[in-house]
């Protein structure tokens, strides 16, 4: 081993670094650096040609300055010159500079690429590795363009040195990550996969990262790697700790390779081959067994390496989610780690158990650790570990333990770190809603949440509690009573005042019988908070007051007094002033009947995905909330806020009352109460219309080349479609699925062509089917329209959809030889018989996909007809009752320009034109 300050040790560099270190202040440092930069600049510009050593030294100094965090705008050329030096260290420094300070200056990139090309073809393994390292470090698109073709060759060539293969594999991986379109494995695939069998462990270690990444993108092409990976893993797992020599790390055989093998297997489902699967299960069992053996070393490296493999194995077991025995063993192992003295292991065990909790096989086993996890939440000193514990409690929560978990989370909230409070609040709110069996518990929980962590309760949370109270009449009285009590606390959070104002405004009458909460007491309590609140809350309270006037005529004069006071009616805030003026006028002009109509109780809210869940997902990023959880949320949430009895009442017309909060996602009702009675209904009628439901209509053009799929979906309804065609006849099955838990009534569909009637009623969660028989009389271009009307929770829903019936559905494929095709093509030579379109590709130009689409179109795809093999030609006859229309088609892709030219010829001009239009949207 050479001594330190190795080789030719650049003394000038060492002096410079010392100088910088000795600088007493930032200013001094900058001064010293500027002096050095000036010096280097003059050296580079000077007349005297610099020798390689000086150039290397100065480039190295520049690099050092850059790494200190200063900008460097010269020296690139000198670094590039170093690349072609025949001295190794000069070349090496040149490459390092380029790797760190890559510049997209095109002139330089060309020079750099040239130097790399020379080194790659030098057959000197050390130089080749340097060049490959540089490509891997820079990984730019220009480099991918220049070398993506060359590197696979180096990787699989028989005479390539092992070290070069290793660099080539990872170099290719980096290029694939930046420019997947440029790295084409094609013919090399099988040889790359077989690198898993390489004798050199280092080669396998490097190659497997590449294979894993490629497998994620093209699992089918690489699936032979599964059995190779299993046998490699099996050999490592069963080897003695000394077998693998230097690849054994603290008595653990090849930990990095083992982890990578287990990771690769997670790209695939469990092996289908029984023998392979058996071998793999054996490996996993061995790994689990080893975890129970006494450690071979006391060093933390030993246990880390061993447990790294164990955790990766557990990830694989969870990924398969099919071996109950292994899942439960994994869970028990993690359970031991939960109480381990190593913080790292406790952290990882909590994290890993979160995913185990979502498996049906291990959910119960995870639940047995609840006390330990609660304890972790209370006692862990590291906030990131506590966060994991909270996540796990959330994941293991179900109906059986919800009360306990929610209570623990609530009490933790009182002292929780500020950084995680908001997330905790959302979690508590979701769990409380999802697992509420009795709604008084739910209301208590949310009000507690507001009490404990009011600042972190977002609007979504308190909107939600109001929605639920409105939709459930069995909880309204309780909610009013509880919120009334909560408001009596001397200091209560503004969010509590909001909830209180809304709920008492709606349901204060339910507790007014008790003299302790008589109408006036309620009003005075609310009004005592008024002056401490922000403008939006005051606005809400004013609306609550006008609702009081309707609920309790005896409060009218008191409230009018308040509204009339200068602080209201002359308030400097326009919104408040307007409300005060209008409410005052409304209460004095309108008759009791009008008042009762305008201020009627809120109708139930339409069911939709919990906005809180959406918020948590947003906070945690996509993928953080599993699909599993979402569906469950929807299912169970349905029971809660569907409002069974009330929502299903089809006779209740949309109530034209004001939505005080604007909870319906429309603009908040600001101009709440115009003074003339006759206008009122118009202003409020908006409340009944369901225009806020986001929907996803699938464009009909998606069905040109396929016959089945989902035609339409929104929060309420899903429409699936299945169709078949023969000659000029077709049959279409429409499936109307009710996604809610409430029945749809007076469900009707009308088609501008004849259709069998559909069941007028769709139960919550149920699906009904409608069959439509179709006959094509003559060619057409407009699709039939389907109109759907139904009532959901009293609100009328109205949809109009285009049925995906297009002229091409009536194609009969016609096979013909090349000769016949061209003859017919010539016969259809009238200008109006041809339609042509040149258009940009909207999707990747994949031959197989194109073929599949053309076949889906219904014509025969003719092979060996067009002299250019890139082109596609098709032939078919459209069957209508009136006539048959022969059609020919030619599609010429131009991959370079990403364009297509489509030509259709048929015996009828309207058909050519329509087919051309339809198809141009498909590619």
């Amino acid at each position: 081993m050479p001594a330190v300050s190795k080789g030719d040790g650049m003394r000038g560099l060492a002096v410079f670094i010392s100088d910088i270190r000795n600088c007493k202040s930032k200013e001094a440092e900058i001064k010293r650096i500027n002096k050095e930069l000036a010096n280097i600049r003059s050296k580079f510009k000077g007349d005297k040609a610099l020798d390689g050593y000086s150039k290397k030294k100065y480039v190295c100094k520049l690099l050092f300055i850059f790494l200190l965090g200063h900008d460097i705008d010269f020296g690139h050329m000198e670094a590039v010159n170093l690349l072609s030096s025949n001295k190794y260290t000069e070349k090496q420094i040149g490459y390092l500079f380029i790797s760190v300070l890559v510049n997209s200056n095109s002139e330089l990139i060309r020079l750099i690429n040239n130097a790399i090309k020379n080194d790659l073809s030098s057959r000197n393994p050390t130089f080749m590795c340097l060049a490959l390292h540089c490509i891997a470090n820079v990984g730019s698109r220009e480099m991918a363009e220049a070398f993506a073709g060359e590197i696979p060759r180096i990787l699989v060539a028989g005479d390539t040195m092992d070290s070069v293969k290793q660099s080539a594999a990872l170099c290719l991986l980096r290029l694939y990550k930046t420019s997947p379109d440029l790295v084409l494995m094609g013919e090399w695939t099988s040889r790359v996969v077989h690198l898993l069998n390489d004798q050199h462990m280092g080669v396998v270690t490097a190659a497997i990262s590449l294979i894993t990444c490629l497998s994620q993108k093209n699992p089918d092409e690489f699936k032979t790697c599964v059995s190779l990976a299993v046998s490699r893993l099996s050999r490592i797992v069963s080897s003695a700790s000394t077998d693998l020599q230097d690849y054994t790390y603290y008595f653990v055989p090849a930990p990095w390779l083992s982890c990578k093998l287990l990771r690769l297997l997670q790209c695939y489902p469990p092996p289908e081959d029984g023998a392979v699967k058996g071998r793999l299960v054996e490996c996993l069992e061995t790994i689990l067994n080893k975890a129970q053996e006494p450690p071979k070393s006391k060093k933390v490296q030993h246990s880390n390496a061993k447990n790294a493999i164990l955790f990766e194995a557990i990830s694989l077991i969870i990924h398969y989610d099919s071996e109950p025995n292994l899942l439960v063993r994994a869970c028990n192992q993690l359970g031991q780690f939960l109480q381990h003295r190593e913080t790292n292991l406790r952290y990882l065990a909590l994290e890993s158990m979160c995913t185990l909790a979502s498996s049906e096989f291990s959910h119960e086993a995870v639940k047995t650790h609840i006390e330990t996890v609660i304890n972790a939440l209370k006692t862990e000193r590291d906030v990131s570990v506590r966060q994991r514990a909270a996540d796990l409690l959330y994941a293991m929560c179900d109906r059986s333990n919800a009360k306990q978990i929610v209570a623990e989370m609530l009490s933790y909230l009182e002292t929780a770190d500020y950084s995680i409070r908001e997330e905790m609040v959302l979690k508590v709110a979701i769990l409380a809603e999802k697992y509420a069996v009795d709604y008084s518990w739910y209301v208590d929980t949310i009000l507690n949440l507001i009490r404990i962590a009011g600042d972190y309760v977002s609007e979504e949370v308190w909107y939600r509690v109001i929605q639920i109270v409105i939709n459930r009449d069995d909880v309204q009285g309780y909610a009013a009573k509880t919120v009334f009590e909560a408001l009596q606390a001397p200091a209560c959070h503004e969010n509590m005042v909001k909830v209180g104002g809304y709920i008492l405004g709606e349901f204060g009458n339910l507790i007014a019988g008790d003299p302790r909460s008589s109408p006036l007491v309620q009003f005075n309590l609310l009004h005592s908070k008024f002056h401490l609140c922000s403008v939006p809350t005051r606005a809400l309270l004013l609306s609550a007051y006008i609702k009081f006037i309707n609920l309790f005529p005896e409060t009218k004069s008191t409230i009018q007094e308040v509204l009339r006071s200068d602080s209201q009616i002359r308030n400097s805030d326009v919104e408040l002033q307007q409300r005060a003026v209008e409410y005052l006028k409304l209460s004095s002009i309108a008759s009791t009947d009008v008042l009762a109509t305008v201020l009627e109780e809120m109708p139930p809210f339409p069911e939709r995905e919990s906005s809180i869940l959406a918020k948590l997902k947003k906070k945690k990023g996509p993928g953080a909330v599993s699909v599993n959880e979402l569906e469950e949320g929807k299912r169970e949430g349905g029971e809660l806020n569907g409002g069974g009895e009330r929502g299903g009442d089809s006779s209740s017309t949309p109530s034209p009352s004001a939505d005080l909060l604007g909870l319906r996602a429309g603009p908040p009702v600001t101009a709440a109460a115009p003074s003339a009675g006759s206008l009122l209904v118009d202003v409020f009628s908006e409340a009944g219309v369901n225009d806020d439901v986001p929907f996803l209509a699938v464009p009909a053009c998606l069905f040109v080349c396929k016959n089945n799929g989902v035609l339409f979906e929104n929060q309420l309804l899903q429409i699936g479609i299945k169709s078949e065609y023969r000659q000029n006849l077709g049959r279409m099955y429409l499936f109307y699925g009710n996604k809610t838990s409430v029945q749809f009534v007076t469900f009707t569909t009308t088609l501008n062509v004849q259709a069998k009637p559909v069941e007028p009623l769709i139960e919550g969660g149920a699906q009904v089917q409608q069959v439509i028989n179709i006959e094509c009389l003559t060619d057409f271009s407009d699709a039939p329209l389907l109109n759907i009307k139904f009532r959901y929770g009293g609100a009328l829903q109205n949809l109009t959809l285009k049925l995906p019936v297009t002229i091409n559905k009536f194609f009969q494929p016609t096979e013909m030889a090349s000769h016949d095709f061209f003859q017919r093509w010539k016969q259809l030579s009238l200008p109006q018989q041809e339609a042509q379109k040149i258009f940009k590709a909207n999707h990747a130009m994949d031959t197989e996909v194109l073929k599949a689409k053309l076949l889906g179109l219904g014509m025969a795809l003719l092979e060996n007809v067009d002299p250019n093999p890139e082109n596609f030609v098709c032939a078919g006859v459209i069957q209508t009752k009136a006539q048959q229309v022969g059609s020919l088609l030619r599609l010429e892709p131009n991959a370079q320009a990403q364009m297509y030219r489509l030509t259709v010829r048929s015996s009828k001009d309207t058909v050519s034109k329509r087919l051309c239009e339809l198809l141009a949207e498909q590619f």
Partner: protein
Amino acid sequence: MQFMLLFSRQGKLRLQKWYVPLSDKEKKKITRELVQTVLARKPKMCSFLEWRDLKIVYKRYASLYFCCAIEDQDNELITLEIIHRYVELLDKYFGSVCELDIIFNFEKAYFILDEFLLGGEAQETSKKNVLKAIEQADLLQEVRALATA
């Protein structure tokens, strides 16, 4: 792995290796944020933390923090041992390495890292093989120096 940072207890960056393309501005921002976060943690705390959508794995050796950012599906413990193996390599090469070795021979620290990790993945985990590659390079340089002398 997305990147690796080495920094001192005073927050001075000693080595930075980025395996994903980022602008200089972004790199500086990330460095500043992470150095602050990690330095604020207490000694007995766990070596892993969530940061943005990444997982941070870090460990302190004497005055120097080694800090890696890995992706969601990556293995924390094996990353911790990647750090340790790198420290061992530096230690073997420099002979009981200290922060000063890395400051004055930063280019060597980069070369050793490139032999061990490439594109953010372990290239060669055998200590012997990595050091052999570095030694060969050093040897090559001496031979060349002799030849040109």
